[in-house]
């Protein structure tokens, strides 16, 4: 066990998988000598060599095309998109190619690819760095989408993603990279890719969140307990595609009320899908409608206004009060 930040847990996971499996390759922009702009790949090129960990030309479609070609020949590429807003350049290689190869060839070809990318707001970036674009990918068949919220999950989920034989999009919230340390085992372990996790138990209502919003939800739940004596159960989705409906339903059977918090803008996103699935599988256990607390339907805002745009504890508390009163 070692105390690790999320970024250290990610580096550790990459290191162990590079060690374990000679087919694992790590590449992207600045991931080699520089160790990545966030140091996610720090020291990995020195340790594993330039054939395993390397810099690419600055071209996102080229990077994921390279990854697809390698994966089709049996390598297990872990490609980095330097900031997730840059993924627009590579949408075809991810959604149009990687995610369809197994289906397209009736299983003759498959793409064991992991795409890692930092995203998420609250760190004062220029435009196109912080956007929560996970909804676009959660809607894409053939692709798994994972967002860890802590160092332990980050390591276990990343190792699972690397060992999985289908493409996995692994999104890392920038605000969480160094916001906490926790005990992380030194050996390799896996966290199942498509399971949500109850991170706070409660009997009165269910709050569903992912990424940095897990902490906002937890703070709001604590405040509700303190001020109103209400015990909210908080679920960290961890996997946005597929969504672990069973864990949500089990919680709602107990609490009868639910709310979703997401950092992405409001419409047609993961929160909408979660609510639809609750409708399909748990509507008879509900005592009121399922609300979602989200930013408005705008693009991710300029840095001067992002704190007001992202849901904060007060907005989540307000949402919880509303959910209870309906």
């Amino acid at each position, binding site marked *: 066990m070692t105390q690790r930040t999320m970024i250290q847990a990610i580096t550790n996971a990459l290191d162990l998988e590079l060690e374990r499996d000679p087919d694992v390759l790590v590449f992207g922009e600045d991931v080699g000598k520089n160790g990545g702009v966030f140091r996610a790949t720090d020291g990995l090129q020195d340790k594993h060599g330039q054939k395993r960990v390397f810099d690419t030309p600055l071209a996102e479609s*080229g990077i994921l095309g390279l990854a697809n070609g390698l994966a089709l020949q049996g390598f297990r590429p872990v490609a980095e998109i330097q900031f997730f807003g840059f993924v627009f350049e590579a949408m075809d290689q991810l959604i149009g*190619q990687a995610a369809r190869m197994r289906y397209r060839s009736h299983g003759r070809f498959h793409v064991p690819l992991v795409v890692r990318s930092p995203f998420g707001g609250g760190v004062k970036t220029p435009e196109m760095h912080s956007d929560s674009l996970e909804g676009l990918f959660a809607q894409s068949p053939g692709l798994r989408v994972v967002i860890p919220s802590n160092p332990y999950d980050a390591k276990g989920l990343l190792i699972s993603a690397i060992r999985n034989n289908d493409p996995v999009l692994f999104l890392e919230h920038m605000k969480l990279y160094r916001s906490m340390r926790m005990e992380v085992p030194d050996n390799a372990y896996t966290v199942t890719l498509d399971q949500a996790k109850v991170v706070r138990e409660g009997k009165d209502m269910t709050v569903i969140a992912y990424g940095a919003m897990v902490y906002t939800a937890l703070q709001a739940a604590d405040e509700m307990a303190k001020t109103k004596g209400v015990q909210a159960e908080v679920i960290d989705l961890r996997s946005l595609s597929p969504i672990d409906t*069973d864990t949500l339903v089990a919680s709602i059977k107990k609490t009868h009320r639910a709310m979703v918090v997401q950092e992405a803008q409001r419409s047609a996103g993961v929160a909408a899908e979660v609510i639809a*699935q609750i409708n399909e599988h748990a509507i008879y256990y509900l005592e009121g409608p399922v609300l979602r607390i989200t930013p408005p339907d705008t693009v991710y805002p300029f840095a001067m206004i992002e704190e007001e745009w992202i849901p904060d504890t007060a907005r989540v508390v307000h949402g919880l009060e509303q959910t209870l009163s309906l």
Partner: protein
Amino acid sequence: MSAVLEQTQWVPFKQVLNSEGRVVDPDLMPSLSQDQVRELMKRMVTLRVLDQRAVRSTRQGRLGFYAPVAGQEASMIGSEYATRKEDFILPGYRDIPQCLYHGWPLEQWMLWSRGHQQGMEIPPEVNFLVPQIIIGAQYVQTSGMALAFKLRGEKRVAITYTGDGGTSQGDFYEGINFAGAFHLPAVFLVQNNQFAISVPVNLQTAAETLAQKAIAAGIPGIQVDGNDVLAVYAVTKQAVDRARNGDGPTLIETLTFRFGPHTMSGDDPTRYRSKELVNEWEQKDPLVRLRKFLTIQGLWSDEEEEQVMETVKAEFTEAMKKADSAPKMTVSSLIDSMFEQLPQALQRQRAEFARQEA
């Protein structure tokens, strides 16, 4: 377009046979046996008949998607003939012939054309990827394939195809640039058939040749008469050998022309091509040229050609029968092919369809 058939200031232009079937560049004449040259002729005749049958079958509703290949036989056959079975082809949607000669069973291509999932469930030892629909996407994947061969120390080559329109894509440049930067065993082939559906090359680019785009990526570019099967073979063979020997990638532009429409889905080429232009290219028919070359030497006869035509007709009919007997596709089998381990939500959806299908 005849101007580009002359030596340009940017890249070399190569030709072995002129349109009369006479050797104009003995140095480039590939070292093929008489039987091998006759084999190239057989393949081109086969392809011309196959194309006619495919066009007809499409009209009859017995095939689905088809992009005609008549006119481009030399570019397709000559380049594939320069590869080995272990080399990997990343084709565009028109590049069916290269895949067939690389091992795609005819009936499976027919299934693919119809939109049947088993069409691309090709045997494991056959090395080509599903014909690409997104123009240029295969170029970036080719670099990945080639890097895989390089990292494993395998003496294999990745070869990819696109058309003149494809060279306008960002992926085209990203693909050749990655291959150059990593010094990869890759061959990038552009079949310049003069029109991207309806848009002529001079509206695609101000570049005098498409091969010169290689210069920006720091790799060799070469232009070849794409209706001269011996020249296409020779130039591709050199590029494939270079790649296999660790000397890096090459971009090849073949100058050719499709006689038919873009696809069989309603394209009318008379809207964008003049009769004169079509006539001009018909004078450069790749089959006529090689036939002249072989006939001069007494290596080809009408009887032989007739026999090849009869053989392919019989094979086509036989393959169509096999394709017709393929099991009907099901939605549940489609769902099964989305993931190795089916997520729970998809399992539920699968169960619904499986019930209906039972």
